[in-house]
């Protein structure tokens, strides 16, 4: 469906506003139903100080689908499990 067709169905005349609202709608869709997935990879580093287990979530992320780590014994990415609570004894850890 073209942007023009969507505008005609609704009776809108402002293209820029329509495009902005369509992006909002796609944002809602991606937040709820995962229509289209994107993959990013980052290097894991050997931790030497307290913040070396911190990795940034992608800036354009709407919803996480899965997080995996590469198993170097067979070079396969395997899903890892989420912790419900942060391990308390590692807070401000200076010797991880």
């Amino acid at each position: 469906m073209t942007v023009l067709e969507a505008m005609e169905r609704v009776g809108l005349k402002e293209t820029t506003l329509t495009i902005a609202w369509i992006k909002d709608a796609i944002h809602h869709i991606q937040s709820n139903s995962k229509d289209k997935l994107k993959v990013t990879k980052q290097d894991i580093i050997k931790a030497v100080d307290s913040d070396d287990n911190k990795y940034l979530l992608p800036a354009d992320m709407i919803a996480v689908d899965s997080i995996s780590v590469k198993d170097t014994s067979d070079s396969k990415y395997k899903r890892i499990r989420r912790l419900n609570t942060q391990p308390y004894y590692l807070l401000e850890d200076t010797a991880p």
Partner: protein
Amino acid sequence: MSSNVEREWFYYLKGRHILLYQLLSGSSSERITQSGVIRTREKELMYPNEDIADGLRIEYTALNEPFVSESLETTTATASGTDISFALSGTRITTDNTNNFWDTTSGFVAGDKIRVQGSASNDADYTIDSFSGGGNSNMVVSGSTLTDENTGERVTVTQIPKEATSPDETSHINLNKMLSLAVVDYLKAMVYEQAGQMDLKEYYMKEFYGKLGDNESNKRKISMSFPAGVYAVR
């Protein structure tokens, strides 16, 4: 070396960060000292203790190519065969089938974005620049660097949506028909919100989420049958 990662690695989400943890008593850690004493407590966690190139993989949704230049319903050109070769010189993908295989038989046109799968070393996305050779047997492409490769592998070339980076009225919404109709409901909801008619806004938002649900259930068609009860009216 990391192993058993699905059992021994964990993550915790905190703000904009993923915090990675590894089981201290896991298979990649030394459990028993030379004196035979177990060094770690069970289920104790530690930070990652090794470098792994591209080790963390995140799969997520994003506002990814919201507009495309052709509707998804007509982005259907595809070709497959074991007679497809690749040449760096001339940046072309060639078929031994010279009977207008790319354009007439398979439906590709210049400007299409394509994805190559199944090749030994040329799996990537490309853009078709032109066709050349007898019977248009060569597809001249750009976008990724080709590696010389002979025929033999079962190669599949599929047309994929091409992003409209500067969307206008002629751009297509990068969604299937059901989700595009959901977007129309969302636009109506926004129009009524601007007009202050919140009841109609709520109605169309409900329609929007209903269509999202329909689209999901369309992927999972399940039929259920229930045994008739003893006293059921037949």
